[in-house]
């Protein structure tokens, strides 16, 4: 997508027209959930909330990969940073996330070798450049990032880099939707994640939609994309005809990206996974297959996850499932803020609490 193209979706006339249309057609009070953290931030940054009628509440879902990572996994990441002769490579968002007693940032200040990378392949390069060290990449993300992590493992396999490994805490989105729809929270429609859908395709949501018949629209990330998707959800609600629709057809196809899926499936097998705030969701995680065991940090470092309670008083779990919004958490802005985060939702750039804190003020 060229920049010019992307700017068309910022066109204020189109956006205002869509916002006016939403206000005109929306009658019933509804709660829509955006399942993707990038959507949460895009909605706040573009000021969309201030343009919507009072009938529409937007809730943020479990779409920030750092935020849904279980406390015991965060603790294991931190424990890896303490391993001797080990370089921990990670995307930046994880560095400040508090574990039970420390954070990667603190370990780094204490002398641990924690490197921020922009790509998993940078971690592979680190392994090549540091043959006398073990390099472990912290694999956090959804179907969007998992294929590139898988490709990095394949590359390391090909290059016989025996000092490279990945601790996979990857998760997949459709089973989380099932868990939410089965839960106690009433959601009138889902804004489905754009980037994840580029990989898995529209068809991946078909069985979820057929089972629950709740309005679903796959959304892009520009302001007009988001307003268009919200308008489509409102249309579905008001007409009483729920549907699974694609408002991001320039990027998302019915089948997704089969090549990326094939690479992901070559390296990862689906297994149960623990989600912060939700608990164990069957068949919702990605573990490294036996064939690539040499690159599986769980095996290389003999990691045993130790049960760890979520921080006391922290409502991240309820916020991730749409049961609360950040101002309803007793810690929000009182003891928890981006400088001293209690839970990951306040520290990740895509976390709901951080987005509220940064863009929403006191509301």
């Amino acid at each position, binding site marked *: 997508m060229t920049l010019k193209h992307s700017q068309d979706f910022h066109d204020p006339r189109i956006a205002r027209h869509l916002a006016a249309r939403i206000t005109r057609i929306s009658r019933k009070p509804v709660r829509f959930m955006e399942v993707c953290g990038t959507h949460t931030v895009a909605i706040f940054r573009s000021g969309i909330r201030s343009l919507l009628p009072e009938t529409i509440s937007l809730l943020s879902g479990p779409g920030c*990969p750092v935020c849904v990572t279980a406390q015991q996994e965060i603790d294991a990441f931190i424990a890896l940073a303490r391993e001797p002769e080990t370089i921990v490579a990670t995307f930046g968002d994880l560095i*400040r996330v508090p574990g039970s007693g420390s954070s990667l*940032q603190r370990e780094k200040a204490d002398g641990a070798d924690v490197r921020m990378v922009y790509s998993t392949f940078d971690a592979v390069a680190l392994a090549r450049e540091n043959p006398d060290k073990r390099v472990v990449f912290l694999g956090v993300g959804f179907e*969007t990032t998992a294929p590139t992590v898988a490709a990095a493992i394949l590359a390391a396999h090909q290059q016989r880099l025996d000092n490279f490994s990945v601790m996979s805490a990857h998760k997949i989105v459709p089973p989380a939707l099932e868990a939410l729809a089965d839960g106690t929270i009433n959601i009138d429609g889902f804004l489905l994640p754009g980037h994840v859908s580029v990989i898995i395709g529209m068809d991946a949501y078909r069985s979820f939609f057929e089972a629950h018949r709740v309005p679903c629209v796959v959304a892009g990330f520009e302001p007009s994309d988001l307003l268009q998707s919200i308008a489509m959800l409102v249309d579905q609600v008001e007409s009483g005809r729920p549907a699974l629709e694609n408002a991001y057809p320039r990027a998302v196809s019915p089948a997704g990206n089969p090549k990326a899926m094939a690479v992901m499936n070559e390296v990862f097998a689906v297994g149960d996974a623990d989600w912060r705030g939700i608990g164990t969701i069957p068949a919702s995680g990605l573990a490294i297959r036996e064939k690539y065991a040499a690159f599986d940090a769980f095996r290389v470092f003999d990691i045993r996850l130790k049960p760890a309670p979520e921080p006391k008083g922290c409502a991240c779990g309820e916020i991730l499932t749409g049961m609360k919004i950040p101002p309803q958490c007793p810690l929000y802005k009182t003891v928890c803020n981006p400088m001293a985060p209690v839970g990951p939702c306040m520290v990740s750039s*895509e976390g709901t609490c951080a987005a509220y804190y940064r863009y929403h003020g006191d509301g």
Partner: protein
Amino acid sequence: MKPDKILLDHGSGGKISHGLTADLLLPVFDNPALAMLDDGATLNVLGGRIAFSTDTYVVDPIFFPGGGIGDLAINGTVNDVAMCGATPLYLSVGMIIEEGFPMADLERVVAQMGRAAKLAAVTVVTGDTKVVPKGAADKIFINTAGIGIIPGNVNVSGANARSGDVVILSGTMADHGMTILTQRQGLVFESNLKSDSAPLNHMVADILRTGCDIHVLRDPTRGGVGTTLNEISGKSNIGIRIYEDRLPVKPAVTGICELLGFDPLYVANEGKLLAFVPADQADRVLTAIQRSPYGEDACIIGETVDEHPGRVFMKTRIGGERIVDMLTGEQLPRIC
């Protein structure tokens, strides 16, 4: 979890840096000049006023498109002095050099400093050189300090923004920060980005020569325009509204920011200034900036408002409104 060690966030220029200054430094050095927390201190000396400022430069890499640590060290302090409304005159230079640092690189750094000082018309009058064992510092760190004279009728400060002011930004945002980022290991972009490192003292002189009532001058370096505006709104206890569609950003910078998940509002600049002036004098000041070197892209990006004192708001491109908060720690890239 209050940190018991210094973290990289403490040096980000955002809220965490401010906390360090407010909680640790201000109580110890307690004095009114420091408490203003402007880019430099304004001091009464022998019946006149001088501005005094210092800054330390640790940029990595030390050479980058558009400049290097040498000219940055001169321009940065020149600009901090100039933002007090002063004419910068004299600078000191202190260098901490790592053992083994190539002599050719040192010569290049010093040559950069010489050229930058000449361009800014300041004189380096004192200095110091220390060499530390390999590994005790990374290549070269430079501290500069500068003094300048403030003309009698000038009274600019981050605390002086008033109702009815407009906010002028002297050019495009985020050029320096994104240039440095793309030069770092592993981020290879084919782009023509270059740092905006530049002396702004001549621009400030042009602004002051208009005779307009200049309330605030600040250069939005670390923490970017967003953080500097928050500092001004807090110190002046006034609301600020800016308009997303007026914020000048080069297309290549916008593209790389989008790709890496950075907000140009929080990315460092090294050759830009923010000026707060009464609305009815804005055109004259804007014209003066646009005619001066480094100011051709200057524009009015917003105004002060009586609502929400101490907060910065943005009217978004699509007509929505949201808060612009101060940067908290290091800006982090997106993860999914």
